[in-house]
């Protein structure tokens, strides 16, 4: 069944994926701590009954942990390639699969793009986050912040007032 684009929908997809894929347990917060240093941003487009872009952001210092967790290894383990940006992109890919089904329903067609990942300054990320139609911020057990936001690029914003 289709749902409106909301911060709750994003929080559910982010929380479940972080837990299932990266063994990271995080809770939504309304008072996000500031990013301490640069941010890794992954972006991915989606197109169903409306089109948009999802943005996942984590502290740059957290990306190596995410890469190791995806592989079930300690940081610096034998299989960890050092391509930590790839891990953030892949997590967004998994999140996008869940978001698409939650937004449009399991039977509706939805095309997902390829993740694009870059390292940005915290201020640049905060500016991007301010323009989102829906966003959620979660904090994991060690206090590191993870943002997921969505920008609608064409079509009506689901759940918006007429």
């Amino acid at each position, binding site marked *: 069944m289709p749902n409106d684009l909301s911060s709750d929908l994003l929080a559910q997809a982010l929380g479940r994926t972080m837990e299932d894929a990266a063994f990271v347990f995080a809770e939504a917060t309304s008072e996000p701590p500031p990013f301490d240093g640069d941010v890794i941003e992954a972006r991915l487009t989606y197109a169903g009954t409306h089109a948009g872009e999802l943005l996942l952001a984590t502290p740059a210092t957290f990306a190596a942990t995410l890469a190791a967790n995806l592989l*079930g290894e300690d940081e610096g383990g034998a299989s960890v*390639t050092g391509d930590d940006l790839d891990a953030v992109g892949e997590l967004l890919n998994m999140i996008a699969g869940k978001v698409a089904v939650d937004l449009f329903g399991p039977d509706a*067609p939805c095309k997902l793009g390829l993740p694009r990942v870059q390292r940005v300054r915290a201020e640049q990320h905060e500016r991007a986050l301010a323009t989102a139609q829906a966003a959620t911020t979660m904090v994991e057990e060690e206090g590191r912040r993870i943002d997921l936001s969505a920008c609608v690029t064409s079509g009506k914003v689901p759940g918006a007032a007429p």
Partner: protein
Amino acid sequence: MSYTILIADDSAIVRTMVKKAVSMAGLDVGQVHEAANGKEALAVLGRTWIDVVFADINMPEMTGTELVRHMKADPALASTPVVIVSSEQSQTRIDELKAWGARAYLKKPFRPEQFREVVENLLGAKR
């Protein structure tokens, strides 16, 4: 005799995740080949016998969907099973891929035992 597998995904970390999952599943895997897109996968398939292909859908150059269609149209590759490993969860998409020739579908994030179940279903129990 062990299985020879091909993993096609543009993400290096996912290729490593699949390799680890296959190994943890206790499957008797010999050679593991890797490709970053459908075109590279076809090149590997053209020169090496592959028992099963694990392919993502969204890849640059040539997608997993195009790879499945190319393989189906090639008599030498038509019977090589392709398992799609993807984040996409739309049932419509899964049904489409199966109609075009994909033999099974695993959703990311996956568990090692899912690989064992799929490979044994497609190729029979451990050779």
